[in-house]
């Protein structure tokens, strides 16, 4: 029996952590814990990417998701203070059903996606071209993948607009001056000259 290479061991370690913590994300009752488990999932995936020599992606995952997105998420979750209502009852009520579905799905995946069906002959070679990962990525992104890159940019822009348009509310009870209206006004709209007959002194 061949000894298992150390790299394989590390891979399974990270993969195990990723799967387990992902399960915990949806299983934990406390949202803060859920977010923290998500952070763990990201870190584990980052480790796997590092194993695949994709150091740029690995680092960017940690920087952007763990460093920025998740922190923001954590703040939000803490601030809105979600009630820890017990979803337990419903959860256990649906659990057998859900578990059955998952079991079936996994079974079918085991049948269909058995490793023997994947030939690595058609895969891109494991050896990367020479050069820093970042540089290589940059070269590809701005040449062969320029079109998807731009569209992805547009997608992000759209997401920003969509998000803003949904949450942005014009202040309702705020009184502001309508300068144009003020300038456009005419005398007749503001002043009414009334002709009052002068009172005569009654003698």
């Amino acid at each position, binding site marked *: 029996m061949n000894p298992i290479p150390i790299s394989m061991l590390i891979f399974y370690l990270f993969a195990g952590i990723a799967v387990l913590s992902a399960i915990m994300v949806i299983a934990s009752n406390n949202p803060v814990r859920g977010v923290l488990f998500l952070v763990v999932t990201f870190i584990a995936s980052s480790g796997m990417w590092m194993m695949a020599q994709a150091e740029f992606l690995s680092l960017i995952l940690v920087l952007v998701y763990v460093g920025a997105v998740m922190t923001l998420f954590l703040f939000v979750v803490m601030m809105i203070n979600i009630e820890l209502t017990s979803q337990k009852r419903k959860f256990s009520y649906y659990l057998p059903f859900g578990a059955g579905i998952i079991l079936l799905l996994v079974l079918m995946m085991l049948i269909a996606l058995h490793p023997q069906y994947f030939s690595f002959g058609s895969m891109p070679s494991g050896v990367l071209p020479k050069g820093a990962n970042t540089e290589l990525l940059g070269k590809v992104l701005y040449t062969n993948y320029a079109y998807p890159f731009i*569209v992805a940019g547009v997608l992000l822009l759209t997401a920003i607009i969509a998000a803003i348009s949904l949450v942005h509310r014009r202040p309702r009870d705020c009184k502001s001056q309508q300068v144009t209206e003020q300038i456009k006004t005419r005398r007749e709209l503001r002043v009414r000259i009334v002709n009052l007959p002068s009172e005569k002194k009654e003698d």
Partner: protein
Amino acid sequence: MNFQFPHFSAALPEIFLLSMTCLVLLTELFMKYSRSVVYVLSQVALLGTAILFILGFNNISYTTFNGHLIFDALGSLLGIFICIIACIAFIYAKHYTRDRNIPNEYYILGLFSTLGMLVMVTAQSFLMIYLGLELLSLPLYAMVALQKDSPTATEAAMKYFVMGAIASGMLLYGLSLLYGVSGSLNLPAVASAITTMPEKQHLVLVFALVFVIAGLGFKLAAAPFHMWAPDVYTGAPTAVTAFLASAPKIAALGMAFRLLITALPQIVSQWHELLIILSVLSITIGNVIAIAQSNLKRMLAYSAIAHIGYMLLGLLSGNAQGYSAALFYILVYSIMSVGGFGMIVLLSRRGFEAENIEDFKGLNSRNPWLAFMMMLLMLSMAGVPPTVGFFAKLLVLKAVVQTQMVWLAVFAVLLAIVGAFYYLRVIKTMYFDAPGDPTPIACASDTRLMISINSLALLVLGIFPGALLEVCRVAFGL
């Protein structure tokens, strides 16, 4: 690294639309009271894009941008119709959005969504298909929720978003598996990789295919992935429904063409089988449940499911004639669909949505012209000659019969008769019931003109279907 400079002319319509959209965005930001300017600019953007497509329409076909984008007749044709249908939906939305304080983002998000559709129908790689799909869907989720004071809209948006995300996940999973076995993102490359693949690996392909079909089915709202459609159609503001029920269907069919025909022609017998199930379920569920609806928007949602079932009949036949028939069907359907929701928009006013079938009572005595237009729409949906709906159904049924599946054609015709019931009920309500609200209908002249063109187009195309048939034929190089 071999880098070929791309042909930018192939992406000219998309580039134009993106530039115009950014212009609209800036206009909205810096001009106060910019509603009409934004509206006009959006229409210019859509029409300009359509014109660019029309000018570029020809038989040559080539890929560029490193094989991410294909320029061909099919993509151009779908692009033309997507732009025109979006343009019609915007016309219907003009007064509706103003009266209900739906912000200008309706147009901006609509334009981005249209851009996503164009990207999707001209995509030639999994990456572009996925990006296009997301760019198409994301603005739609937001558009549904744009009417912030409506709780039903918010609920609908939430459902749409969650289910859309799940469906995207399924599609993405399927695509990643395909990438895994073929080692390429490029659609023709995937197809050629499959031809050299040993037979045993086809199990993976089939597994991936099911996920891909699930993603497609969701976007098309084909049963059993249709559950979002009735709730979203009903909950969304009608102007948004008019948009999301029409143009995205064309794009979804475009995606199906690209994925199934370009990338997976070798496993046609497998997806043929899956599509039969989808089609039978959609036709049955759509036509039967629509009968029980009293809400017109909901009824149209189920009718949309049934129509998609009929369209799939053309697609599943697996030959170029069938594809043309499906294309013809979806183009016709999008015209009918945008018209149907447009009619609801037209009859609604601030504080009142004419979305129940009861609201159409005695429409003939209130406004005979609009009643006639609605009748044309309904007849076309039911597939009654001389409207073009008849031709659309005839062509897909013919395609099915030619593939020796007479039972399926008979089944489809029988359920079409069931379907005719609820369309004719609307006509009966309009013509034979006493109006509940005798006030004459006041509607803006541009909307009125548009609905007239929209409905009469169904009649004219029904009498002269030659030109549309011809372009559908050319799109598949027949």
